[in-house]
């Protein structure tokens, strides 16, 4: 590998490339993850006990999750809520991506994409905070609903999981729209017209032509959104309440309130396994590879 690099760029540049890449992949990407796993397999000990008889490998930190009813329930809730967020985001994004890729004129599409990109650049915290104001107990949404006579007293939107999920769909929607748009855009318009000429209705055209073609985009969007949702700390912290805690908040507490990093590492690793599991499942279901996702 080094020979190919130095043949093209000369040894000094090749050396720099290998050093930088190696440092990154070893010191930042690989070793910290391995260390986290190792940490998760050790008990939480006082400094004096380290290296002593109690310092041995154990799965006790993983067993905690299964014995603690509250943590287990939050873990499961995080999974299914993230799946729900992913499906909701897909449903909301699909018509938009279809419009951008195949219905809009190039000028309309260019304008819409600019309008999409601008909020995408805005801080996730601020985007979430804007929902905090909107959904507040005495906030504008409640006032509007009251004024319209749709509700009799204000609703506490910020006390359950619904507020968190709405905020997540809002925060991560563009990670779904862009992969979908890229995938649908590459579909030959003649295929859609042919399907229509042969008598297929709108639903059928989408089910048989557009969706199969957009599979890599759907897979990429779903993987990204699920990962972001399951791993989100900001949205549940801002829009949730103590009653609607997310798994990431439990992890945070182990580190900075419980002071048990080993336990926290085990929970963090479970979250990582969850995300990898979801990714593998989606890649298998949609028959796409890693190369399709990075596009």
């Amino acid at each position: 590998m080094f020979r190919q690099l130095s043949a093209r760029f000369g040894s000094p540049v090749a050396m720099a490339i290998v050093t930088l890449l190696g440092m990154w992949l070893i010191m930042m990407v690989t070793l910290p993850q391995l260390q986290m796993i190792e940490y998760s397999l050790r008990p939480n000990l006082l400094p004096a006990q380290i290296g002593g008889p109690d310092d041995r490998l154990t799965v006790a930190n993983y067993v905690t999750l299964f014995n603690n009813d509250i943590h287990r329930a939050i873990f499961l809730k995080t999974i299914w809520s993230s799946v729900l967020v992913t499906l909701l985001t897909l449903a909301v994004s699909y018509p938009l991506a279809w419009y951008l890729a195949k219905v809009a004129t190039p000028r309309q599409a260019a304008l819409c994409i600019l309008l999409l990109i601008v909020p995408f650049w805005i801080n996730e915290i601020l985007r979430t905070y804007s929902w905090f104001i909107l959904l507040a107990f005495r906030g504008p949404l409640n006032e509007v609903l009251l004024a319209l006579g749709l509700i009799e007293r204000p609703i506490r939107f910020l006390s359950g999981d619904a507020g968190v999920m709405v905020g997540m769909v809002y925060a991560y929607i563009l990670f779904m729209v862009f992969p979908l748009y890229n995938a649908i855009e590459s579909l030959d318009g003649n295929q859609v017209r042919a399907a229509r000429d042969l008598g297929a209705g709108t639903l059928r055209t989408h089910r048989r032509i557009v969706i199969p073609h957009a599979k890599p985009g759907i897979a990429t969007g779903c993987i990204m959104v699920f990962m972001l949702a399951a791993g989100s700390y900001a949205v549940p912290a801002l829009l949730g309440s103590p009653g609607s805690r997310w798994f990431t908040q439990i992890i945070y507490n182990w580190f900075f309130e419980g002071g048990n990093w080993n336990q926290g590492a085990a929970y963090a690793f479970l979250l990582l396994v969850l995300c990898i599991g979801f990714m593998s499942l989606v890649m298998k279901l949609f028959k796409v590879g890693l190369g399709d996702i990075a596009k």
Partner: protein
Amino acid sequence: MTSQRLLAFGLKFYIVVFFAYLFLPLIIMSLATFNDSRFPTVTPWGGTTLRWFGELWHDGGMWHALSNSLMVAAGVLVLAVPIGISSALFLNTVSSRAKPFIYALILSPLLTPGVIIGISTLIFWRQFGVSGGIFLTVLGQTTFIAAYVMLMVMARLQRFDRTMERAALDLGASQWQMFRRILLPYLKPAILSAAVIAFLQSFENYNTTLFVAGYDTTLTVYIASQVRTGLTPAVNALGLILILITVVLAVVYELKRRREVAAMARLKGG
């Protein structure tokens, strides 16, 4: 035919609703900055005021967090941009059986939740006696931002015409001259865009930073803590300023990118 038209109308309507959904929360948040009320809201409207900008100006914690954010972003640029360029050059040059594995490794930070990158960085550096702070924030953020830089540089590198490289060497340039005078200038637009994105990613990051920042609170972490504890419309004033800066940056960046794409299309067509 009428059902077709109804569907087309429905789609248009949906698009309008979608963009309203996208912008309304941000507009309401911005409006709340000007409401003369102890709490950030637009209902009820207590009169128009600019005093929250003044309060923000005198908020020492905000300035401190801002300076931390800028230092972190500078550190991330210094590390992530060269690493990202190196990875792109590596993937573009090397053919080996280990390459798919290395490629997967390079992409893996993008598919790892930010909190986990923060946690593993924190744990890894503990054995060297390094605890959370600006240094770890730079390292944690670089872990995934370098991969974004790689993707952006790679996209341009793949369109590079390697006959230019050979021509330079045939005309007597050294490999270093070729790299310095041909390849780097060609990559420059992608490197600049990647630097802009890297800066923003760093500035905005919350999930990773939360775990590695220690007492060196960055601006994003500061905003989040203000929302959860001492919430006043000063947060909205800060948000509004950040949004305005971001919007200007985003529009400039996007228009510049489009000009480049158009120029490229002209070159190809002509």
